[in-house]
């Protein structure tokens, strides 16, 4: 199933007040922007969002997903687990259909330096961190 319509794409976006996630599909690249605090309030919607993103990326032959985390001030380990789950799902896709993940991070944020380093080590072949 192809899912390229703007309204269908925007339907994935989430906003719980303290956290929001948006996505924009542009050909074979996709831009995700997370903003706020990723904690219990964001947990379920973040998981749903990342599941939707993965399907959308596969349906549209996406080659790269750029995830902007620069405006995320905190992420709990529960939410971090949802990111790990997403990365694991991408790894399980056979190579021709697999997309790379490029994470835009803030060097001034300690959680981003530490957690994203750990995430990159978890899937070095898949993840690039930019700061």
């Amino acid at each position, binding site marked *: 199933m192809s899912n390229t319509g703007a309204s269908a794409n925007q339907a994935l976006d989430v906003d719980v007040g*303290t956290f929001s996630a948006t996505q924009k599909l542009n050909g074979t690249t996709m831009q995700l922007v997370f903003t706020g*605090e990723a*904690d*219990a*309030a964001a947990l379920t919607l973040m998981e749903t969002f990342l599941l939707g993103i993965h399907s959308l990326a596969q349906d549209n032959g996406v080659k790269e997903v750029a995830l902007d985390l620069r405006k995320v001030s*905190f992420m*709990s*380990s*529960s939410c*971090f*687990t949802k990111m*790990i*789950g997403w*990365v*694991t799902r991408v790894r399980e896709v056979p190579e021709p259909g697999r997309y790379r993940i490029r994470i835009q991070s803030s060097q*001034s*944020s*300690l*959680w981003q330096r*530490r*957690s994203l380093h*750990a*995430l990159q*080590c*978890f899937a070095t072949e898949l993840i690039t961190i930019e700061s």
Partner: protein
Amino acid sequence: MKQDKLAAYFELRFRPNVELVSVVRRFVSAFYERIVHDLDVTERLAMVTHELLENAVKYSSDGETLLSIEVEQVGGPRNVLVRTKNRTTAENRKIVTEAFNEANAAKDTFSHYQELMKRASTRTEGSGLGLGRIRAEADMSVAYAIDGEELTVDARTTIPAAVAS
């Protein structure tokens, strides 16, 4: 006397839920900022407080948790202790004991964290990452004690001496 060494002390007894944990994290962040004057240290301590409280919510049998934070100074560097105390079931005490035994047996903190991340990728409930994250990302040592039904978890670190402002 220990009290003479205390640069700052904070204690909160409450019934946290997952939403309240974030409220407390923001509150203690302001407390840490005033005490440590270092953004990285503040972020580390706030993250550790959040992870300990989320675990307390998960493992408490009656919902009540005591959070205490101590900053102790003798001369130069300061010792920081973040402690949670709550009652737990026998089953949860066993889970916590096993998690600590495994963490303490691990030769390398970061490799152990990577192993926990691998397991977390298939979990549907909880993360199982909190303890590993405190050790690997916040560079804090973690210990636990069980007294009857009461579980105490301590996270400790040493931070640089306060900079005169």
